[in-house]
């Protein structure tokens, strides 16, 4: 939502489903207390307790005029494993303040937008990400910093691919990203380039999206340890979803 107000002249144009924020573990209980004073309550606690490698604390909910307002207090940005070298400390350090709200720097926002579209959500909502990027590009970007972060966070291939889509749609890409091509892993780049504009525009059903997300997470996971963690995460999630559905059916 903060990104909304910062990059969109008319923030209502963007679809918002919940309020996401990243918190520091030691501040969670105080943050929870504050939200509870504002009428939010923890939800799905039972389900959350049984999650392995959870990336956010229990969802907090509040009903406002019939709308279920949800807050997702994140403890991680990339989950269940971080095959990249996203440096949360650096993201915290470089944050900027917009109307009392802290958001990642423009350079970090661009990288996180690309990662969210290409990796985390596996192209679902891709065009939202591309329009976000176009709007971020109108801001004062430090291109040297952006290139350094792209290398440091090990997201060269993701940024090159994302940049090519931006160029294909809007004509101009992000300055300096193409120069990183010689440092890119060709196999990873080819894997991404298989997802052409014609493919990612197609509507996928939930099952297709879920299976693609799993495939994608497996592909990027580094070594047996990370791949095993992804497998356990997926199996745990599937089991919990099935139990959740049965409980819901019984209630009905």
């Amino acid at each position, binding site marked *: *939502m*903060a*990104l*909304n*107000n910062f990059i969109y002249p*008319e*923030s*209502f*144009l*963007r*679809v*918002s489903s*919940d*309020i*996401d*924020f*990243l*918190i*520091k573990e030691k*501040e969670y209980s*105080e*943050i929870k207390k*504050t*939200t509870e*004073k*504002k009428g939010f309550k923890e939800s799905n606690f039972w389900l959350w307790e049984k999650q392995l490698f959870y990336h956010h604390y229990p969802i907090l909910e*509040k009903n*406002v*005029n019939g*709308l279920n*307002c949800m*807050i997702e207090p994140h403890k991680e940005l990339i989950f269940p494993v971080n095959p990249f070298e996203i440096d949360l400390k650096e*993201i*915290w350090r470089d*944050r900027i303040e917009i*109307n*009392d*709200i*802290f*958001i*990642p720097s423009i350079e970090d926002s661009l990288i996180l937008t690309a990662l969210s579209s290409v990796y985390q959500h596996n192209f*679902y*909502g*891709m*065009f*939202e990400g*591309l*329009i976000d990027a176009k709007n971020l590009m109108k801001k004062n970007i430090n291109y040297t910093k952006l290139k350094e972060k792209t290398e440091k966070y090990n997201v060269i291939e993701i940024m090159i691919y994302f940049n090519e889509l931006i160029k294909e*749609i*809007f004509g101009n890409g992000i300055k300096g990203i193409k120069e990183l091509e010689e440092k890119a892993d060709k196999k990873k780049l080819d894997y991404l380039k298989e997802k052409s*504009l*014609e493919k990612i*525009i*197609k*509507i996928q059903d939930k099952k297709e999206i879920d299976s693609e997300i799993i495939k994608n997470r497996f592909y990027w996971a580094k070594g047996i340890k990370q791949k095993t963690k992804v497998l356990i995460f997926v199996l745990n999630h599937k089991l919990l979803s099935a139990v959740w559905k049965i409980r819901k059916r019984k209630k009905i």
Partner: protein
Amino acid sequence: MNSEERLFIALIKGNVTAKDYENIDWNEFIKLAYYHRITGFIAKKLNKKLISEKTIKQINKLNKIIISKNLILNNEMISLFKEFKKKELNLLQ
């Protein structure tokens, strides 16, 4: 690409022609815009003279829902973040 996808891309690129509006299944088109989470953006770019009254109403209805939700979420977020700031709690949105 089908005709709905072609119109969708042309609107984003900003090089849409009247021909792009031909043979559109508007229900599918609205689904596509919603799926890619840019209904409001797309609605603003559409040439309303080339669309039926029924479709305009359908898009406006969907946008009203999105805008109401946005306003409610925005209000809640602003009020929460003011509290967090008072207590010097660190959050990144």
